[in-house]
């Protein structure tokens, strides 16, 4: 080839991807243009480094500190700390500085660790080797050193290191096959084409000598001699080269500019609902704090208005204090009160919550039940911020292929005339009709039958688009099971692969497509060759199925198998030529091409003779149906979002029990909208749904669940975009509202024909609907990434190919079935735990600070602290921190097995039930009550008397210590009361923490600490313990404090038990509960099937027989034309199909 030729290529800007494609000029192989071309302006592009980490070694401390102090709470504590440093406040700066330091350090360590992991992942990616062409030679370099303009060589099964323009491949036709499984989840092989002018450059030397310029971008004024490039010339980073030995390409986008990286960046911070309520509570407490400080400041100045109180003779002020401005004084007092009460906002709550989430998430990764033996993968936790959100899910959006199903088709059986063949009951190549359980019309196949049978297998063997990959390496992904023929089948349709493989096991092996002849190996090990007709079309055909096959097909369909009918037609030479002509004419027709083609097909597809039917199983993932059923019982609405056809998707939905027999299906599809206007359809549907729900409100009152009659909605992508499209008159929300209304009434929704972005759109629509439900998206492919990122919780199924979804998700699980334990057990636990954590933290800080507030009324509003500095500092970070942390890690209010067995318990915590304002107010009031008990209990104890037997008097520090001791015991015992799951660790931590308090106090008061400039706690605690009444008071006050809570617990459990409590009591078995809540129960009622209108829908579905693949071929021996028909879906077996539609493909 002419190496010095200048090739000018232009790469158009794709619509809607403005941020991706900028204007750039690339000189392939960094060869500058020949003199005379316009001036060369070197452009700077980023290198091929992928950076997902946030910090570097150097900027970690400043950047992390900055990030942390952007959190309102941390900033607040910083301010408090600074105030303490600057003005004279009642507590030493240590009391808030130490906890703050602790919090910041722990968070920084956690974030640093996470970032280190990200660095490691980045490095692994950036350092993987890449082959370059440099000066005509092959060079290996690290991926990060790749630059725009470099020529890259990619070998088979390697992923592209950056976005490339495809220059040439070792294939003669300049094509290559690519799977984009890790990008969009499509595992099929896509063909990409090399640039025409360069496809001849096969060797390193040739390609090294290439002179070419690529222009891309919005310039618009591209010169005419530039050759346009399209997306078929573009190989994206992340895609994998398949079935092609090697290709050459030139890097045009690298590093963070690749499409994949740009897609990454949309990842945003998700916050859980618990965190939101936490912040709301925090604001309430902030208001309480400010009002407390204000009240005290005002009261102080009112109280001090009499000079003998402000400055009695025994307590004179200094001269400078006297001269200070009144307002300044008042302001400092206000700040001092703020500092005094600032502990009401629990500084350690954040760090405890963070630690709880971080440590708690390990229980997910550790869970053996969620470990997949097959793949050796366990669950992954990518963010621990959303643990509790798993217990709050109201909507699940799930992908179908690869998530619900295994995306692993398997040929189950075929049925020819009266015989059913099952591939795995083959002995020594001998086909045995399955003998048991099937009634056969004719048990001994006649000669005619045998001929039919072989015809059927040949048809299956030939009517497909499967490519054969010669298998050199030992382990291919789809190695044929019997080692005789070592070839691997590849196709964009997994069904076809399954069929060809199945037929192989029945004795017919498809060998290859060679020079327009298809070769197959028959049972006698003879190679047969057939002319390959590149005719292919899809159409639906009506057919009449004979009794036996129909029954069989329906049976299979009920089981969720994908069925296909095969039919043939014998063509003589003249007929064949006539058809060819007809088709050719139709194909080249300039006008009405579609119509003409249809007419031609109509002619061919007449008088087909049915051979039999096949059944292919897209195996549902293990326990998918069970999982979905459990999730629905748990009150979660499950939506299936898929790119698949409606029929296929619906079949899967039935198979996995998303739709049940009594589910009334509502259709909102393009077809229906074509018939009626969108407006009418929507209103009609909403009428159906609302009428029903209206009549159910009465039942709702009587405690019956509204979804006795459940609806399923089917919507397709086109219809959805119509709904989402804003209308001209601006009333766009109208349809949306209506649509949402319908969706809310449906227990299951199936969205088919969805583009990835539409999936996200749906999630967004629900997410921002009126009730702001918590959504969860689960998927395995990159086409699910958008919805995974959009949903509150994104779960990736660790797929066979591509971990894109798993990487972008918040949690990754090996199998769909693990979702059940993830939500029903882990989610439930996390939610219970964290809500208790949050409420408890506020409670214990009310207990802590409210006595201080009360004390101000008895110390002349002088900001005197009730507790010693050490107690103030350590209360939150050591005396009461560990029990709640441990509780929040270990608590199991119900056993794991019960939670799994009885999904309805999930409803008990739905809608943030444990963090509602009512609960919050209860906890706060409880805290206030306890604080009043502590303070006034101690007050009446100490009022005007001595409490020791030696007549000596206690001082203010003993008073505070008594309050503090009662408080520590009360709040710890309160937690003990709430603990339902006492392992030895709980015992150890709860009693240990009380013991620690006592030991610490003994030590703290038992020694004159030389580093302290005050010794006010010296022997205070011990002296207190030497007094009998103090012991009695502690017992009494702790009892009084706990009494109302115990009373409330016992009464609520007895009078208004929640489902959870019933289960705990053991008085309610799961049996009743099932029937109470789940729609499944209605299956048992015999009246339902007859009355429910859904049966009608069903029957229409079952009549629709679709034929998917049909390929004509000419051969010497067998009949010339074959056709297959695929039957989809449906589970209602009791309907005949006198006029089924059949779809044909030639």
């Amino acid at each position: 080839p002419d190496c010095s030729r200048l090739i000018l290529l232009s790469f158009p800007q794709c619509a809607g991807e403005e941020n991706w494609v900028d204007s750039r000029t690339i000189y392939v192989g960094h060869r500058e243009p020949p003199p005379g071309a316009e001036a060369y302006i070197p452009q700077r592009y980023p290198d091929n480094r992928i950076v997902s980490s946030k910090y570097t070694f150097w900027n970690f401390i400043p950047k992390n500190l900055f990030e942390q102090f952007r959190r309102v709470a941390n900033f607040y504590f910083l301010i408090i700390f600074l105030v303490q440093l600057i003005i004279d406040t009642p507590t030493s700066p240590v009391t808030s500085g130490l906890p703050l330091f602790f919090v910041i350090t722990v968070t920084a360590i956690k974030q640093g660790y996470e970032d280190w992991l990200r660095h490691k992942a980045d490095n692994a990616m950036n350092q993987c080797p890449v082959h370059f062409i440099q000066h005509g030679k092959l060079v290996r370099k690290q991926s990060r050193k790749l630059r725009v303009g470099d020529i890259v060589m990619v070998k088979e099964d390697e992923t592209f290191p950056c976005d490339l323009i495809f220059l040439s491949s070792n294939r003669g036709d300049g094509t290559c096959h690519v799977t984009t499984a890790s990008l969009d989840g499509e595992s099929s092989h896509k063909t990409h084409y090399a640039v025409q002018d360069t496809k001849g450059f096969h060797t390193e030397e040739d390609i090294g000598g290439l002179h070419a310029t690529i222009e891309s971008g919005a310039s618009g004024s591209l010169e005419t001699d530039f050759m346009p490039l399209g997306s078929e010339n573009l190989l994206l980073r992340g895609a994998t080269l398949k079935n092609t030995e090697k290709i050459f390409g030139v890097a045009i986008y690298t590093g963070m500019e690749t499409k994949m990286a740009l897609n990454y960046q949309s990842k945003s911070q998700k916050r859980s609902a618990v965190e939101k309520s936490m912040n709301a509570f925090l604001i309430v407490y902030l208001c309480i704090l400010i009002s407390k400080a204000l009240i005290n400041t005002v009261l102080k100045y009112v109280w001090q208005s009499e000079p003998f109180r402000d400055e009695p003779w025994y307590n004179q002020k200094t001269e400078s204090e006297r001269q200070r401005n009144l307002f300044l004084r008042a302001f400092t007092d206000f700040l001092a009160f703020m500092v005094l009460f600032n502990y009401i906002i629990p500084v350690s709550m954040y760090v405890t919550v963070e630690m709880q989430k971080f440590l708690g998430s390990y229980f997910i990764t550790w869970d053996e039940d969620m470990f997949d033996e097959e793949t050796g993968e366990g669950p992954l936790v990518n963010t621990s911020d959303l643990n509790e959100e798993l217990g709050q899910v109201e909507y699940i959006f799930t992908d179908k292929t690869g998530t619900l199903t295994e995306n692993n088709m398997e040929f189950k059986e075929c049925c020819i005339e009266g015989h059913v063949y099952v591939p795995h009951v083959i002995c020594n190549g001998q086909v045995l009709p399955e003998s048991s359980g099937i009634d056969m019309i004719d048990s001994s196949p006649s000669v005619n039958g045998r001929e039919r049978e072989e015809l059927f297998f040949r048809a299956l063997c030939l009517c497909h688009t499967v490519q054969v990959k010669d298998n050199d390496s030992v382990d291919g992904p789809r190695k044929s099971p019997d080692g005789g023929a070592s070839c691997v089948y590849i196709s964009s349709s997994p069904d076809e692969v399954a069929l060809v493989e199945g037929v192989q096991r029945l004795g017919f092996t498809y060998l290859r497509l060679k020079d327009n002849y298809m070769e197959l190996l028959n049972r006698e090990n003879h190679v047969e060759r057939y002319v390959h007709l590149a005719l292919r079309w899809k159409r639906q055909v009506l057919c009449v199925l004979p009794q036996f096959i129909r029954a069989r097909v329906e049976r299979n369909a009920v089981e969720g198998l994908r069925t296909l009918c095969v039919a043939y037609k014998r063509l003589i030479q003249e007929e064949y030529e006539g058809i060819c002509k007809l088709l050719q004419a139709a194909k080249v027709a300039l006008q009405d091409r579609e119509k003409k083609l249809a007419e031609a097909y109509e002619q061919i597809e007449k008088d087909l003779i049915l051979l039999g039917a096949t059944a292919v199983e897209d195996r549902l993932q293990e326990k998918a149906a069970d999982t979905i059923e459990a999730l629905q019982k748990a009150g979660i609405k499950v939506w299936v979002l898929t790119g698949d056809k409606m029929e296929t998707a619906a079949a899967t939905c039935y198979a996995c029990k998303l739709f049940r027999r009594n589910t009334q299906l509502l259709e909102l599809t393009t077809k229906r909208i074509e018939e009626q206007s969108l407006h009418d359809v929507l209103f009609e549907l909403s009428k159906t749904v609302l009428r029903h729900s209206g009549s159910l409100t009465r039942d709702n009152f009587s405690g019956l669940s509204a979804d006795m009659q459940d609806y399923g909605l089917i919507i397709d992508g086109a219809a959805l975009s119509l709904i989402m499209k804003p209308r001209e008159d601006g009333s766009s929300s109208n349809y949306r509202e209506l649509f949402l209304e319908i969706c809310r009434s449906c227990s299951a929704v199936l969205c088919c024909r969805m583009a990835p972005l539409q999936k996200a759109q749906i999630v967004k629509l629900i997410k921002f609907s009126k009730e702001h439900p918590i959504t969860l998206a689960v998927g395995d492919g990159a086409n699910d990434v958008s919805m995974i990122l959009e949903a509150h919780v994104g779960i990736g199924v660790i797929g066979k190919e591509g971990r894109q979804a798993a990487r972008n998700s918040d949690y990754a699980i090996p199998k769909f079935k693990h979702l059940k334990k993830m939500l029903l057990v882990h989610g439930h636990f996390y939610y219970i735990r964290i809500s208790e954590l949050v409420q408890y933290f506020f409670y214990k800080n009310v207990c802590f600070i409210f006595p201080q507030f009360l004390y101000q009324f008895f110390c002349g509003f002088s900001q005197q602290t009730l507790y010693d500095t050490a107690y103030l500092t350590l209360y939150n970070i050591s005396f009461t921190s560990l029990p709640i942390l441990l509780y929040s890690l270990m608590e199991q209010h119900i056993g794991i097995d019960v939670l799994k067995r009885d999904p309805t318990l999930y409803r008990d915590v739905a809608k943030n039930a444990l963090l509602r304002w009512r609960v919050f107010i209860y906890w706060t009031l409880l805290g206030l009550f306890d604080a009043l008990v502590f303070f006034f209990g101690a007050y009446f104890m100490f009022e005007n008397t001595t409490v020791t037997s030696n007549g000596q008097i206690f001082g203010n520090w003993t008073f505070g210590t008594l309050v503090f001791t009662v408080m520590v015991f009360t709040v710890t015992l309160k937690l003990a009361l709430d603990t339902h799951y006492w392992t030895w660790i709980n015992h150890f931590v709860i009693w240990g923490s009380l013991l620690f308090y006592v030991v610490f106090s003994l030590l703290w008061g038992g020694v004159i600490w030389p580093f302290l400039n005050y010794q006010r706690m010296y022997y205070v605690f011990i002296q207190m313990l030497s007094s009998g009444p103090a012991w009695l008071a502690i017992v009494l006050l702790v009892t009084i404090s706990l009494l109302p809570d115990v009373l409330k617990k016992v009464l609520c459990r007895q009078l208004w038990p929640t489902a959870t409590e019933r289960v705990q009591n053991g008085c309610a078995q799961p049996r009743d509960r099932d029937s109470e809540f789940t729609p499944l129960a209605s299956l048992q009622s015999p009246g339902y099937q007859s009355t429910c209108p859904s049966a009608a829908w069903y029957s229409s579905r079952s009549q629709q027989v679709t034929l998917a693949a049909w390929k004509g071929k000419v051969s010497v021996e067998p009949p010339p034309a074959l056709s297959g028909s695929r039957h989809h879906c449906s589970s209602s077996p009791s309907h005949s199909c006198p006029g089924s539609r059949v779809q044909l493909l030639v």
Partner: protein
Amino acid sequence: MTWSATARGAHQPDNTAFTQQRLPAWQPLLSASIALPLFFCAGLAFIGLGLGLYYSSNGIKELEYDYTGDSGTGNCSVCAAAGQGRAPPPPCSCAWYFSLPELFQGPVYLYYELTNFYQNNRRYSVSRDDAQLSGLPSALRHPVNECAPYQLSAAGLPIAPCGAIANSLFNDSFSLWHQRLPGGLYVEVPLDRSGIAWWTDYHVKFRNPPLVNGSLALAFQGTAPPPNWRRPVYELSPDPNNTGFINQDFVVWMRTAALPTFRKLYARIRQGNYSAGLPRGAYRVNITYNYPVRAFGGHKLLIFSSISWMGGKNPFLGIAYLVVGSLCILTGFVMLIVYIRYQDQDDDYEE
């Protein structure tokens, strides 16, 4: 063991009870059947305790006298009037006469009580130097800033003991006289002024600075007494074990009270004939009236009190125990009724 098996083992989580959240655990439930007996038991125990406490508190005798000197309340009003508006008030003495119809069961403790005196005011309560009080010579010369304005005297000398608390040391003194027979002589009742402070305060926390040439006075040389004091600190008592910072009155005073109304122990009566208590007869308390309280609306009281194992008279604990015990029993009954009725309903429900 094949390679794949070991590799899987590497990924597979540990199957321990802890990681699988299946640690053996006690799972108690706070159900009525447990709570009911608990309530009744607790209720009965509390009532029993409450009765005991109530009676033992009722057995304690208290005798108190307000000697503030509001006009017409006794002869201390003269002193109060004399001290009005003068700082420092002139020395004055008055007396309180009382008679005991029967034996005042001992041991008897003599307290003084101040009201409306905010020892717990923050500015007041921080105004001390614990290092100085522990006898540290450097702190003696350089009192902490918290002591201001009682840190340095007008002459610039460091004040020892510094701070507002020390400066406002209670300086009234009392002596008790007993008249055994009507018209007879008053005999002084010995007041034991030792052991009124915490043992640890007196022996450990408060220390005098090291003596200089065997003299405490020299040790305090170069310091000034607090402005309100009439005598320097080393002359608080002639007893060398009770003077300086380890004067018991001083130590008692330095333990700041929790509430604005507070008592402090003045003396114990346990010597000689009075160890069993104060016998029947007429008594006189001679009061040296120095301490001004009317300026801040306070009162001074003098209290004789006997002490039991549970301290002084305080009916609160007994009453609280009784109330809580009764409440427990009451709620126990309420719950019992609820429990029985609910059981019926529950049975219906089950059927």
